[in-house]
């Protein structure tokens, strides 16, 4: 059996039953393959879940970039477009999202589940790319040393949005949309040229004067 079929079968089971199959053997058997064959594709059920998340992210990026308006978007809008597209995909898979995110939440609230590891790694690369672009257009302020930490800030933002989506009870998850707009605006206010840079500039100026005088 192809892994492309194995994954939808597993996700289908998960959504229908609200939990993973008891054993890999039982699942493989129901698919008409041996347990050994299953392990040739995936080490565990968790591996399938991780891959599903990675694909959500890739699909969101690809879909957002297909939008003709994408070419005209600045960094902020590109990130917004990614989030909205991702949320659209997640909405269609909400049962799966709730199952995978809540399961880990039960153990320790608001701790980011391992199932997102690879998904988050790819998100960081995407953010890096978007920020790099933003620096070349001046949308994002160039701040050596400091900017290395940006990826982490945006990762936190992604996690915040996911948790917000999980807990959102508004119709059509409209409140999540609003949360995305707010969070992204805040983050770009922070990484854009702002008071902080002016203060830094001023400080530098004073120091220079001091050393000259």
């Amino acid at each position: 059996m192809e892994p492309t079929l194995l994954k939808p079968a597993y996700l289908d089971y998960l959504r229908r039953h609200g939990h993973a199959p008891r054993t890999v053997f039982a699942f493989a058997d129901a698919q008409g393959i041996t347990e050994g064959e299953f392990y040739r594709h995936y080490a565990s059920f968790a591996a399938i879940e991780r891959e599903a998340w990675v694909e959500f992210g890739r699909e969101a990026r690809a879909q957002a970039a297909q939008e003709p308006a994408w070419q005209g978007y600045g960094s902020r809008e590109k990130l917004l477009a990614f989030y909205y597209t991702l949320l659209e995909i997640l909405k269609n898979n909400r049962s799966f999202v709730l199952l995978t995110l809540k399961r880990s939440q039960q153990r320790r609230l608001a701790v980011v589940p391992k199932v997102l590891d690879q998904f988050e790694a790819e998100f960081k690369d995407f953010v890096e790319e978007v920020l790099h672009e933003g620096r070349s257009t001046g949308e994002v302020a160039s701040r050596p040393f400091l900017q290395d930490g940006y990826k982490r800030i945006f990762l936190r933002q992604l996690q915040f949005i996911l948790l917000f989506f999980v807990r959102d009870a508004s119709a059509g998850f409209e409140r999540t949309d609003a949360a995305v707009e707010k969070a992204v605006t805040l983050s770009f206010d922070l990484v854009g040229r702002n008071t902080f840079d002016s203060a830094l500039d001023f400080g530098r100026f004073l120091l220079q004067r001091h050393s000259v005088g």
Partner: protein
Amino acid sequence: MSDQPQESLPTSKVARAARFAKTGLKVGANYVQHYAKKAVGADSEMADLHQANAEELYGTLSKMKGSVLKVAQMLAMEKNLLPPAYAKQFQQAQYQTPPLSGPLVVKAFRDAFGHSPSEIFEEFDPNARQAASIGQVHFARKMGKALAVKVQYPGVGASIRSDIAMVKPVALRIMGLREETLRPYLAEVEARLIEETDYKLELSRGQAVAAKCGHLPHLQFPTYYPALSSARILTMDWLPGQHMQEFLAENPPQEVRNQLGQALWDFYQYQLRELRQLHADPHPGNFLFSHTDGGTVGVLDFGCVKDVPPLEQRQFLSLLDPATLADPARLETLLTEAGVLRPTDSPALRGMYLRTLRQSLELVGRPFRQDTFDFGDPAYLKSLYALGDDLMQDQELRQQREPRGSAHFVYLNRTYVGLFSLLTELGAVVRTTYAA
């Protein structure tokens, strides 16, 4: 206010309340300054104070967009209810709301149709051409046709009730209004606002009014496209023309102004008398003016349509009838019937009500008592506002402030004052007799 597209739409109640609190403080500070100046004998005009407060309040409200802004605009329409300084500030609102970010517009389309605007239309301008109070208008093209696509802000419908609950105390305290004055009004506003968030309803009403009023001369209604519309997206023809201020800036000749004014007048008369249904938002932003055929009015936005019950319609028309004003007994009967006068009122109170209402009717009904009326004379509208101010200042009346008469009159009144102020701005001479 910056020209930057606005991405943050403060929707949580806490965030909005925080903004209000800030305004409360600043306005409070303005009052402190006012009284401090007074204490040292300096001259501080009450008008200055209103002006400062209005700007402050407007600054805050415009940041909130959504229905709060709409409520502010509606209050502005009811100039009788507001000191002039507030009314002026709030009227700017329609031209100044900043747009939403492009990706959110795309998302609204994907939510509604499963496709992005670029897939649906041959051309779609991602930058909004106009801001509407609960949405924004984009230009699009399909099959060679120029279209106006209205996109609603997300979450507006859900927040109306809490918005109104928050506007209420602010309106009461800062604008110096009384709770009884405001209550029926806010209830009406809330009902209309909730309707207004339903673009499907607006679409069917727009189609209906266009079908019924299409025969009236010099009016133009857009065609609506149901297949390209949803509860939050409304697609219609892009009508030619300019908004009032731009149009008037080019000094159109008097004949054109008259024809435009006449078209508006006939439109409202027909609605009230024949349809018993009013486009109850005669707000400059809802009309487009052009020189086509010597002056044509494009009618937009059927979000706020008011059904007038037969009883109220009859009462309202009888009150405007010239014969009523000439006959005090008839006026008294009518007012008793409408619930404005009550059998339990003392003779003194009754006399006071009759006197004030006669005065208002004389003024409000004046255009109806002449064959033609020249709205070009701003003195008329001024005295209309002055009357409102006087009524608010009247000690005797203030003590008696309790809701009297039908709440429907709120909208009728608003509609007519709005219409009169449009006509005054146009400076139109209008034939006001109604030929059925």
